[in-house]
């Protein structure tokens, strides 16, 4: 596959990097990333991956754009209120970069559909807000041997970690089981500063890009936390994969995907 002149110009700032080059840019153009959740985290991930020329980007979300989303979900605009988030996201991404094929899945992820959703992708982004989905994504990625980036944001704080099969702990090694419904505050209840999605989502996009390029060190075995008020970033070393982990441990007890109780969607 040869680059067109437009592509050489569009990706010139990538191609000039010795860690990327023409070869790396081709890897990106051949890369396939699935973003689950087109919200505060998914929006910047989708935009940076589209701009970077990641050739195939899937985006899954069942929701419609709400006015209260626009404070942070920068892929959507005022004119998009009421539109399916995946449609609005696709339109923005197509406008940004016609090289990118955007596959949309207007659905919530569940135990029935997730294996099918992730199977054709190289890397998965968890941009969801709820713990049933986060555990489902983790378990499905462990079972299907897919790498993924977990992230969470609330108030002035954010965190992320990267799971790569066979390298370091999975999300369940760290957090075991989802908290009961409403036990841990959500962004809707507690609030979140809009730019937090940009900070943490951009870091998730960076992890996907590094994974596709095969360069640098990923956040495997580390939890990166960010406190915007103190401006402290901490790269917390996590213990190794837990031998007794229910899904990735030596004797897994979770061999089928679980649909934990879903939080009622209030849009």
């Amino acid at each position, binding site marked *: 596959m040869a680059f067109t002149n437009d592509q050489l110009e569009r990706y010139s700032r990538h191609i000039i990097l010795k860690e990327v080059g023409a070869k790396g840019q081709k890897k990106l153009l051949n890369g396939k990333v699935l973003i*689950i*959740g*087109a*919200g*505060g*985290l*998914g929006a910047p991930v989708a935009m940076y991956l589209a701009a970077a020329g990641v050739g195939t980007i899937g985006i899954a*979300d*069942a*929701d419609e754009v*709400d006015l*209260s*989303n626009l404070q942070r*979900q920068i892929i959507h605009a005022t004119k998009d209120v009421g539109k399916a*988030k995946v449609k609005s996201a696709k339109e923005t991404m197509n406008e940004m970069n016609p090289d990118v094929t955007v596959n949309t899945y207007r659905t*919530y992820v569940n135990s029935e559909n997730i294996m099918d959703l992730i199977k054709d992708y190289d890397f998965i982004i*968890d*941009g*969801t*807000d*709820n*713990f049933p989905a*986060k555990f489902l994504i983790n378990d499905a990625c462990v079972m299907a041997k897919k790498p993924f980036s977990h*992230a*969470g*944001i*609330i108030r002035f*704080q*954010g*965190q992320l970690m990267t799971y790569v099969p066979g390298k370091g702990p999975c999300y369940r*090694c*760290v*957090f*075991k089981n989802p*908290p009961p419904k409403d*036990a*841990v*505050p*959500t*962004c*809707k209840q507690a609030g*979140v500063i809009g730019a*937090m*999605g940009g900070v*943490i989502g951009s870091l998730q996009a960076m992890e996907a890009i590094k994974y596709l390029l095969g360069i640098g060190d990923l956040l495997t075995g580390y*939890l990166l936390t960010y406190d915007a008020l103190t401006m402290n970033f*901490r790269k*917390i*070393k*996590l*213990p*190794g994969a*837990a031998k007794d982990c229910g899904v990735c441990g030596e004797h897994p007890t979770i061999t089928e995907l679980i649909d934990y109780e879903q*939080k009622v*969607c209030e*849009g």
Partner: protein
Amino acid sequence: MIITIAGVKKEVAEGIRVTDLIYSEKIESPEYVSVSINDDFVLREAFDATIVQEEDVVEFLYFMGGGSNC
């Protein structure tokens, strides 16, 4: 005795249990925090029985949702 909590050295009482440390550190949603000491996870069931030792490195790991608004 001195231990390290979230990267910061801190004086705590000798013989303090993980459960007490979670209380004294005013951890939000204490029943759902994950804890590691010196690069090992401490099982939640073991919080009561686990005594923090001098120079231990303790990390609190929090559930964080966020992302797609649902």
